[in-house]
């Protein structure tokens, strides 16, 4: 045995441990692989669950938040007295800042024809506070709603807003269908849940 120095007891232990570790790694890998999918996942807000609590504006790791208000124009009533644009109790429908519900003046109101107005969200200014969403859902059709914008979202491993969302409205969705736009009838699914 003295001659055969290449294979000592220490080598044997090393090799055995290496094999065990390799096999357990393979085991964990295979087990996890059975739950794996080729699909990439991203975070998105289910607008039908959202309760407009306002945490999207404060709890995103980005500042301002990657959550923005989007407008589903199909659902919009183009109201003159827009519950998402004006503060409650406003009598004179003017575009003065003190009359607007949005704290960032991110909604642009544009006259189309009597008596209809178009509302466009300026995403550069929007902070995702959901004040307009609450107004629109309470008094209007609910065409304004929050969505995570994927050109901004850094897709954290665990969304820090999802953790604090009181209504569990933020979930992982396949990256091939990254938005849940309200009233998106062509995409299907959304309409039944209204």
């Amino acid at each position, binding site marked *: 045995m003295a001659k055969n120095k290449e294979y000592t007891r220490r080598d044997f232990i090393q090799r055995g441990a290496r094999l065990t570790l390799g096999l357990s790694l393979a085991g964990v890998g295979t087990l996890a692989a059975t739950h794996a999918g080729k699909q990439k996942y991203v975070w998105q807000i289910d607008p039908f669950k959202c309760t407009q609590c*306002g945490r999207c504006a404060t709890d995103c*790791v980005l500042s301002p938040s990657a959550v923005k208000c989007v407008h589903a124009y199909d659902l919009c009533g183009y109201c003159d007295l827009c519950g998402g644009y004006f503060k409650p109790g406003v009598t004179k429908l003017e575009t003065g800042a003190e009359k607007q519900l949005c704290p960032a003046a991110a909604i642009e109101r544009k006259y189309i024809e009597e008596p209809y107005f178009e509302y466009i969200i300026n995403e550069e200014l929007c902070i995702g506070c959901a004040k307009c969403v609450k107004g629109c859902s309470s008094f209007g059709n609910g065409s304004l709603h929050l969505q995570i914008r994927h050109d901004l979202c850094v897709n954290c*491993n665990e969304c820090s807003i999802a953790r604090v969302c009181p209504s569990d409205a933020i979930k992982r969705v396949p990256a091939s269908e990254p938005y849940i736009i309200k009233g998106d009838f062509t995409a299907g699914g959304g309409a039944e849940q209204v």
Partner: protein
Amino acid sequence: MKKLRKFILFITMALVLVAVNAQQRFPKPEFETGYEQPDTTTPEPRAAALEYVDVFILLAVLALASWFAVKKRSRRGILWLSVFTLIYFGFYRNGCICSIGSIQNVTLALFDPAYKISITVLAFFLLPLIFALFYGRTFCAAACPLGAIQDLLVIQPISVSSWVRKTLSFIPHVYLGLAVLFAATGTDFIICRYDPFVGIFRMDGPYTMIALGIAFLVLGMFFARPYCRVFCPYGVLLGWMSRFSRKHLTITASKCIQCKLCTTSCPFDAIDEPVDEKVRTEKTIQSNTKRYLIFGLLLPVWMLVGGFAVSSAHVLLSKAHPDVYLAELLITRPELKADVDNLDIQAFLESGKSMDQLVEEAALIRTKFKKGGWILGAYLGLVLGIMIMNQFVLRRHEDYEPHKGDCFSCGRCMDYCPVVK
């Protein structure tokens, strides 16, 4: 004519929409001025194919780092590779997904059947471990953005006595155990939430996160790579693999001349000094072996004590789960139901879920914590027991060698070694 046709088409479309949206409070108007409704924009997320590019780049960096560390013996190569990693995986990819955080994704995939782990995330978890099993912790040397940012800021490293290091080395096990427990119960991804550097990579983040990152970097100028040595939970797994790796970086290219230069070069105190043969007397070896065996027999005791201790704390631990927290809050302070400012309680009341349902769910999560607490405690007891046993190991050891478990394969020692091939 064309205009008229367009107008008719528009009217029909509008009518269809109105019919579908019968439940709307204010039906969509029929415009007369030919107004065209803008589209709701949906900017696409980063293409899924690019995730595969990331995996490929990780594979390439790992392969290069292993080649630099084990074969080429080039500290410079490793250094530039880590600069690339810092720029690409750190500042460009914003430090997410990383292998450290992927522990939680893998755990969640194993425990939550509803969760589907992406194959690229699984690759990020497995590749560095496989490489560590063959070539040591080359991932830490050059492929980890968290390691890279700290390694580049090692300025005046101080040497820390071995008992402090050994005591601190218990913390990563606790962190790993808690991370797995929280991920398995669907509570939280604590590794990601308390990642100190991700805020710096994004150049944006909550104040506390940035402050923590800067504190780590400042500390790291003197106590080199503090996150890696005292917290990194992935380092525990890499350490196991590396300890038994097939090949590993060696300090000297041929024969050690015991000049001790390498020990001063290593900022991490990861070089084992030779064991003095005078210490290895028959008597000490015998008494050490005896104590080693006694503490070996005590292992089940540590495990039981640990399991009991952690599972007793399951009530406290489970409070980290939002549902358990809410249920407990509503039971102990039912008057809060009237508090309109408490968003969580108001959202729960609006959801229409009954109190019994919530309590039942919370109780289920709590039993999971109790079970998991036993496993976590037993694991920690086992680790502690083995750490104590290792105190009595006096292996024959003639040269200065890197500690295979702790060495990050950064290659500084190779540069310092005066021996040429």
